């Protein structure tokens, strides 16, 4: 023991002073780095500057009018082709669900194009169609609901990614960097909407991007382009005259599972409470 018990130790005070100073310096440095970082975020992506696209000027939004949907699944077909999604019946970026309320039954019967009966009706796993199983049933109410990633304001999938492979862009789209994705599937578990799927062939997670390569070129997402009944609406929420702004303004819209606190950016019209 170099020090005797009860003896005054001046180096302890010196250490505290040193630590205090270090905190102040480090704090200042981190704050200025943070400021620089924020300035970087506000700037448009240089790589997209040539296309005239500024991601700080847009806030994309998506609308679903379930009262118009006819369940033809051309959106699913378009999405698969446009984005090179695996053709099988179990991997989708967008899909359509059918809700059928039969007379005397409390809960709806729900199926999607991945249902074995519907695969049998199309004749192939790579073609999509709904069968007519309720043709002779006593149907009280029935409707189709297209679904896709909600591009949440507060995306739980982004929160849980351990490697920074998924992120939300300033224009409001949640993307996946497939080069950085390690395929841990935390995000698949975290998404309350089941909007993410795992691609076992490439061992990465896949999700809807609202066709980011199209919307940054001024085109509509492929599913919106292909929809024959205008059940899918897309546009910029920053522009009050865009289709999506009008859709939100002129309808009583709702989002899926609002209690999750995710603030979705896909707005629905004409669905029942059973649709989550």
């Amino acid at each position, binding site marked *: 023991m170099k020090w005797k018990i009860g003896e005054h130790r001046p180096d302890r005070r010196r250490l505290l002073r040193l630590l205090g100073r270090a905190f102040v310096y480090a704090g200042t440095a981190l704050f200025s780095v943070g400021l620089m970082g924020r300035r970087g975020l506000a700037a448009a992506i240089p790589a997209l500057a040539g296309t005239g696209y500024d991601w700080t000027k847009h806030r994309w939004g998506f609308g679903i009018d379930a009262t118009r949907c006819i369940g033809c699944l051309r959106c699913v077909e378009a999405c698969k082709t*446009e984005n090179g999604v695996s053709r099988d019946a179990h991997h989708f970026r967008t899909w359509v669900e059918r809700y059928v309320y039969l007379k005397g039954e409390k809960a709806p019967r729900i199926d999607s194009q991945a249902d074995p009966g519907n695969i049998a009706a199309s004749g192939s796993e790579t073609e999509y169609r709904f069968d007519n199983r309720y043709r002779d049933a006593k149907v009280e109410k029935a409707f189709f609901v297209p679904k896709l990633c909600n591009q949440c304001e507060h995306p739980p999938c982004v929160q849980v990614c351990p490697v920074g492979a998924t992120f939300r862009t300033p224009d409001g789209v949640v993307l996946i960097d497939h080069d950085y994705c390690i395929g841990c599937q935390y995000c698949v578990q975290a998404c309350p909407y089941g909007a993410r799927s795992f691609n076992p062939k490439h061992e990465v997670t896949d999700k809807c991007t609202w066709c980011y390569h199209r919307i940054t070129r001024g085109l509509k997402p492929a599913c919106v382009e292909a929809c024959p009944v205008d059940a899918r609406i897309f546009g910029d929420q920053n522009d009050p005259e865009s289709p999506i702004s009008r859709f939100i303004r002129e309808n009583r819209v709702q989002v899926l599972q609002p209690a999750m606190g995710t603030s979705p950016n896909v707005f629905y019209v004409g669905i029942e409470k059973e649709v989550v």
Partner: protein
Amino acid sequence: MADSESRMPRHIVRLLLIFAIGGAIALIARILFQDKSYGRYGIYRGDAVAEIAADEPMYQGPGYCQSCHAERHAEWTAGIHKVVVCETCHGAAAKHPSAKAAVTVDLAGKSTRVRIAGERLEHIKLAIPADSVKLCTLCHEKMPGRPAAQKQIEVSSHAGGQQCIVCHNPHSPKIGAAGAQKAGKPGDAAAGRKKAAACAACHGAEGVSGNPEWPSLAGQQRGYLAGALLAYKSGARPDPMMSAQAKGLSEADIGDLAAFYSDASCKAAGSKSSAQLASAGKAKAAACASCHGAEGVSGNPAWPSLAGLQEAYLVNALKAYQSGARRNPMMAGLAKGLSEAEIGQLAAYYAGLKCK
């Protein structure tokens, strides 16, 4: 205070040293291996955004198709199917007709992103849906859940399993709509009368033919007459006699002639066959009625009335559709299944009907 007193214990120094080396290795690894763009916009690789945005669109939109298929495009925009874009039925245009052409049209920028499902499809030729029943019923099969505003059919009882395109033009499926578009400018019947002098020798002075093999023209649908003359003129409908006659006609002449004959009052040729034959034909004619009218008088300017036409002419026409001498996708499909006896019955039935 002595130096030895302020020195830190050796095991602490060793520990700090290990931390420092570990930190240095982590820092070097970060500089060496982390992408330069990581953290540029947030906690992710900034370049990933541009890579994702660099993918080339596959669905090109109707404007892209219009640049070559203007005629089809015009037909489509005039009809009720204009809400259904080309690629919804024909599939994504992508680089159709060829990769080279597509680059010069409007696709700029190359994709360096690793695609999830491997390479993209490259359509050189787009699909013309072979099974129109399968395709059309995707939207039009009567099914619970489809909104009432959607036109829906009971597949089992509609048109007896025939292909939809037999009666409907998929680009403008409302029966009658496409024909009205094709009828062209209204002609001048008085001018047509003068120009009709050359036709009178075979088709009769007032368009009522006296020859059993040559059709009467009086009262026929205007759009059909004009279309037939245009087809003779272009060679789409070859006929030794008519091709030569039509070659010298201008489009205005054709419009005038069609106006003159369609306005002229008709006279039924009548059938010399037995009533039994005609009644057998009536039973067979149900399939014809949706286009040619329940009583053989067509409600569509583009499709001919059959009532009161020459019996032999009708037989020849159906046989020509069967053999392919007269080309028409709708009629070829319908005529294919007819026997010689059935053709005779149909001709007898229509020839005996009252024209209008």
